[in-house]
């Protein structure tokens, strides 16, 4: 049977992520490169032994934010096609929490756009991790999300190209 499911480029899901499939979904015949970033659940953080993470998202705003990040990246690197999938729910050590794929005719743009996208996800995506560690649990709180914060966007761009 032909698989007729069209992969959504920007998605929040409680199902396991598939980096190879996401990469294939953005690559076209004109692409000489596809880069992927896979964020994994790590077994330690800030000196704590992490047992598992729970991810929570404001899903509709997260999808819209991923689309916005894609549009920003495609404005900097017009040849790039980007996809971002983020997982929610309970994730074990070693599981993928986020997968980003960037396809382009040439590798430089694909690498830059992929790095840019993960930096922006960390700045503005409405997603939260609740860390369960040996001896307790804590909500991790990073950046105050503000998509219009121009210096933050510039910082993401500089990191992407460093």
């Amino acid at each position, binding site marked *: 049977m032909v698989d007729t499911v069209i992969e959504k480029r920007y998605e929040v899901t409680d199902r396991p992520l598939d980096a190879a499939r996401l990469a294939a979904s953005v690559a076209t015949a004109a692409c000489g490169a596809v880069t992927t970033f896979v*964020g994994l659940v790590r077994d330690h953080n800030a000196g704590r032994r992490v047992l598992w993470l729970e*991810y*929570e*998202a*404001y899903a*509709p*705003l*997260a999808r*819209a*934010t991923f689309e916005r990040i894609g549009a920003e990246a495609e404005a900097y690197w017009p040849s790039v096609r980007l996809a971002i999938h*983020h997982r929610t729910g309970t994730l074990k050590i070693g599981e993928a*929490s*986020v997968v980003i794929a960037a396809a382009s005719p040439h590798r430089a743009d694909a690498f830059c756009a992929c790095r840019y996208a*993960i930096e922006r*996800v*960390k*700045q*503005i*995506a*409405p*997603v*939260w*991790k*609740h860390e369960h560690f040996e001896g307790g649990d804590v*909500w*991790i*709180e*990073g*950046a*105050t*999300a*503000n*998509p*219009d914060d121009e210096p933050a966007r510039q910082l993401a761009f500089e990191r992407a190209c460093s």
Partner: protein
Amino acid sequence: MLVTVRLFARLRELAGASELTCELPDGAVARTAWESIVRGCPALGEYEPAISCAVNEEYARFTTPLKNGDEVAFLPPVSGG
């Protein structure tokens, strides 16, 4: 007007609810909704300098006007990835 307030992560835990209904006066803005829920749950107040807000699933400002039936979300600092 009646608006739905959505809370996430630590804010949700502090308030003990992911969704609240608030009755607000005409002319209310997002900040009016925030002040209303902080009155009901003062522990949320310490988050004020760090939160973001969204109205009807789009990022918004605290000065964004509200209308009857709107959904306002308050977001603690994010930690995706």
